[in-house]
């Protein structure tokens, strides 16, 4: 077992940039983070997750990464809980943390993890924001952890309990049927 630390900052940004113009209509220069796809996300806790994971973990390696929650702009309380899948072993604190936040606060959570099985696993993070008035909102965030060699094929419909893809390109779901 060996330990690796990572110094690369890989931002994951939920917010998105301005709509792009056709080239002949724009006088903009390339700027970082300006070309993200626009999306309209569901309501929930307005927290954003960034991390420094480089996307590669060897089997048995202890990975050390730092999760940072930011973009919190109103006062209140934030509770954070790690939701690791069974394939990931967490060697750091997994207790939920609650802290009082000020506008502009960020929350840093160091995590040590490892796995003995190849695959991509999702380290979940449940966040619960509670305003000073007691109004709660939640958001689940997730970081994909890639361990060892990845299978060449992505998951197929056959992996999904009793579901088949028909020759017509239909995903056939099983039914309870009564014929009389």
């Amino acid at each position, binding site marked *: 077992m060996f330990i690796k630390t990572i110094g690369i900052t890989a*931002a994951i940004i*939920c*917010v998105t940039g301005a709509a792009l113009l056709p080239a002949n209509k724009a006088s903009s220069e390339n700027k*970082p983070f300006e070309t993200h796809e626009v999306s309209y996300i569901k309501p*929930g806790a307005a927290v954003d997750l960034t991390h420094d994971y480089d996307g590669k973990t060897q089997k048995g390696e202890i990975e050390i990464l730092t999760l940072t929650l930011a973009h919190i702009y109103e006062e209140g309380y934030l509770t954070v809980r790690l939701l690791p899948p069974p394939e990931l072993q967490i060697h750091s604190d997994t207790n939920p943390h609650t802290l009082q936040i000020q506008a502009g606060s960020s929350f840093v959570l160091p995590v040590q993890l490892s796995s003995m099985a190849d695959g991509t696993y999702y380290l979940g993070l449940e966040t619960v924001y509670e*305003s000073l008035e007691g109004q709660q909102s939640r*958001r689940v965030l997730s970081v994909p952890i890639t361990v060892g060699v990845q299978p060449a094929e992505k998951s197929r419909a056959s992996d999904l309990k009793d579901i088949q893809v028909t020759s017509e390109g*239909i995903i056939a779901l099983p039914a309870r049927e009564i014929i009389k």
Partner: protein
Amino acid sequence: MQFIRLTATGLIAVSLGACGGGGGNTVAAPQAVASIPAPPPPPPPPPVPVTSVKVSGKITYDRVPHAQNSGLDYANVTEMPIRGAVIEAVNASGDVLFSTISAPDGSYDFTLDAETDIRIRAKAQLLSDKAAHWDFRVTDNTQENQLYALQGSLANTGKSASQSRDLHAPSGWTGQSYGEARSAAPFAILDSVYMAAQAFAAIDPNIDFPALELRWSVNNRAAIGEKAQGQIGTSAYFPDADSEAIYLLGEEGRDTDEYDPHVIIHEWGHYFEHQMSRTDSIGGLHSLNDRLDARVAYSEGWGNALSAMITGDPIYRDSSGSSQKFGFSYNLETRDITNPGWFNEASIGAILYDIFDSASDGPDNIAAGLKPIYNVMSSDAYKDAPVFATIFALADGLRREGSIGNGAINSLLDSQSISGEGPNGNGESNSGAIRSALPVYKEVTFNGPSVHLCSVDDAGVYNKLGNREFIFLNLDTDKDVTISAMKASGDEQRDPDFNIWQGRELINKSASSIKGEEVFKGRLSAGDYVIEAYDFFNINGTGSKRGDGCYNFSVTG
């Protein structure tokens, strides 16, 4: 016993008892008695061979309701009809022999050949080719966007005149987890959309919705990355023309949204804005307490209000967590809103829902339903207005639409600390504690004095109040113009940029990397423009060089 009935000439009925005793088997003829021997009865007709069979039935799915805490309540699952969906009879080769649309109670029927092997298939597709037209599908983004369908067994239609085939889509919940296929999920999603489409069709019988896919998978997770791998970030509407879709979470134990109709309809509301109305929202993270860009607050408030209108439930609920037993909720009827105003999605949601609902509470004495809101949002005047779609534009449209009194509208707006008038919020006095946020629109004139504007990060970045300023410009004739923003205050990182809008069309995006200034030179045609000005580092998402900057803004020629 032999029973003879002669009806040609008179009313003669004879019943000959064969068991003696004469007890009760003889019917006296009232007028005459037959004396001729009865002819032998005609032989029964040979059975007509059945060539066709009416196959009918009902298609249903498991609806998992919310518990009081907004988690899912698997102990109280109800069986609900799959309404308005495409139902097919398919033979062994996969050929579709017959297709129909399920009725509001989930029923269907076909007439098919007898003694034919078929299966019944219910597609996760709402289809209407009547006056009101739509095509909504639930597909799997992790399976090449293929369509879900509930599939019955291949069985013979038989020789009888009718056959019943009922199909049910179970939730797949086996007590502690989803131990079986989650067949009900695509149909639960579809049913939320069915309710929304029906509500609008009731107002506009000729409504024509562009096709839309709602992409859901058990692999759809809250990680950002490849959507084909289920890394969708969160449930969201993506408006890009080449890949327009609503993506919905499905990861068990973390966050699933198939049984959260408010979430689904909220996202569908964004689709509605884009396709049937107008939105100028830039999207992004948002919460009920945030002070938001006016366009974002309006769009998100609309989504929240629509979800309450369609479900008939003003309590917005979103389940998540282990066993889906947690969640959060908020009541659109609450008056206890943090940071109320034209920049708050909770305020907007409360106003729109109060216009719709029939409950009179506090300042709400309106029970207008969805129609006046739809009338405004679908009108050309609203869609083609020179100003952005905000609560001010909607309120102005409602005043002009005329079915709600101005006093009642003003009362609702006042209750949320909104006082601006007209489509541009003229005279608004609530700054949300960000001084540069007022007036909502500044105005610049050609060769007139410069306008002082700012981009600040006090309420956050990207889509928050104060990040961007809106400046109105009218040109009476076509002109060669120089539009410039020159730094008046702020640190050395400040990088002003601006977008030039004419109605809904983005005419130019002026976004050089030059610090402290931004200049556009070009020819603009006569007309009204709105210029959206901002500091790049307050909108670029990282927040690394964010800060306050103010600029002198002018249009010269």
